[in-house]
């Protein structure tokens, strides 16, 4: 029996898509820090901690928000049975650079805290109280096979996995999070679910 991708969010080129639908769009000239903060306001989020986070965590929080805002998703399975598996190429490089600029005079502890790629996993876990398994992979490019295989392994014990790719380059960024779950009896009949396999995952990334 297949597992299914029930929900996915993509943030790229100053656009936010949820389940393939364009939700937010900003001109490409807006820098991504501003875009992320504008998106927070557009979504009417009330989470002051957001402004203390680095760009990678902001990106992850916004992607995850769209997914868990849907009660059908957030109430589907217990949070201790939900895993989070994220990946990227650049680790926390953008924040490493920002921190290194403070190293001369007044090193910033709040920046240093984010100089590890898996802190975004922690931030998502804290906001949504997800206490299941968590992992972060460093890969040269988006690796649908790795994410698929790992999620399938986890789904032997976990009920759901939030997977994805959150990467920030000097001038660009991309975020893709998707929620895979074990099927409930009648869920397979819903046509808007995507079968969990590497081809479909790769398509979510390239679309």
């Amino acid at each position, binding site marked *: 029996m297949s597992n299914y991708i029930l929900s996915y969010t993509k943030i790229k080129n100053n656009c936010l898509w949820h389940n393939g639908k364009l939700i937010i769009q900003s001109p490409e000239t807006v820098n991504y820090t501003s875009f992320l903060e504008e998106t927070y306001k557009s979504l009417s989020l009330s989470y002051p901690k957001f402004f203390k986070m680095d760009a990678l965590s902001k990106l992850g929080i916004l992607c995850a928000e769209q997914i868990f805002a849907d009660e059908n998703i957030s109430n589907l399975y217990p949070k201790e049975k939900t895993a989070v598996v994220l990946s990227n190429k650049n680790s926390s490089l953008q924040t490493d650079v920002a921190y290194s600029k403070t190293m001369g005079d007044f090193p910033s502890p709040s920046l240093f805290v984010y100089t590890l790629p898996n802190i975004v996993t922690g931030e998502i876990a804290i906001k949504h109280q997800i206490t299941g398994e968590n992992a972060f992979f460093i890969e*040269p490019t988006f690796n649908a096979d790795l994410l698929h295989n790992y999620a399938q392994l986890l789904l032997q014990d976990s009920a759901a996995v939030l997977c994805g790719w959150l990467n920030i380059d000097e001038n660009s960024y991309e975020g893709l999070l998707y929620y895979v779950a074990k099927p409930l009896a009648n869920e397979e009949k819903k046509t808007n679910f995507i079968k969990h396999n590497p081809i479909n995952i790769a398509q979510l990334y390239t679309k």
Partner: protein
Amino acid sequence: MVFVTGIGIISAIGKNVSETLSSLLEGRTGIGKINHLQTIHKDNYVASEVNYSLQELENLAGLKNSNYNRTTLLSLLATQEALTSAGIKSISAHRTGFISASSVGGMCHSELLYKDFLEHKSHENFIDTHYTGAHATDVAKHFGITDYITTISTACSSAANAIMLGARLINNNILDRVVVGGSDALCKFTFNGFNTLMILDKEWCKPFDDNRKGLNLGEGAAYLVLESERVVKAENKKTLAILSGYGNANDAYHQTASSPDGQGAYAAIQKALEIANLSPNKIDYVNAHGTGTANNDSSEAAAMQNIFKENMPLFSSTKAFTGHALAAAASIEAVITILSIQHKIIFPNLNCVSPMQDTILFPVTSLQKNVEINHALSNSFGFGGNCSSLIFSKN
């Protein structure tokens, strides 16, 4: 069933398993004056440095002008020992993977060279090795491992997660064997950052002591070779231990601090026990994460007390020997735990004199010999709430 057939390690207490064991037996710490790392904190702090320069590490590896950074060389040396220890003559004889963990990656190199590069465009080839996955790709290529390669970066639990993934790939018949572990070199960036968080002890750390002031940073690498039962039987292999349990959970409390009652730690230990099909009272020894920070040691003690209740096994943190080698810590401690099982010895938690006020737990503070360890638990808890626990069992 997943067997450990080989181990390899390099840290401040030794360049291989044999030296490591001697240091542990003789109570010889690797923590001391900083010799190699050119940090502004050199004279005010202690650290646990591998006692070889970059050039010397290259020589040890039998290489010349390799362009490998310190993290990669440490990884290569420990992997070399693990493969030899496992008696692997032909990598391609079975489906073999390499899963390595790192937090520093090539930062140890980049931070020294980038200014020069920006001005003179020199050392261009170091840029590719900054990428955290570069060490894994380089080391896997060096040994001809091709079937599965990936890098995990989840702070201080990274190597445990690499070990867990390896076990899962074997249990699901995706790989026959896998080299798993991690490597991190000391670097100025890390030193500076941990100092900014004010969790470094300027003196030798005191895990689980009431007067503990923080951790000592370390560096090193360690790898296990895990093999499937089928391969072990087919080749009549000598095995060092069984990886019988593993568990991971998120504490979901704070980006860097652990919850006061160690919820994430508790959940990770519990999952490991479930996989191992063991009740808590079957654990004979715990190699604790025990960094020496006020927060971790209290949190971990609370978690252990809740799990083990009146059956608290003997436990110790060995970080006063090795320092905290970040992404490599869990595999370094996995090797130490396996040595404990093999040699029936519990290595002491050095520097612990005054019991913590918020717990009744107190670690083993002197070398204990002739201890029958059937099952041992090894904890590693990282920033980002990433908590992992491994259980190793005697053959």
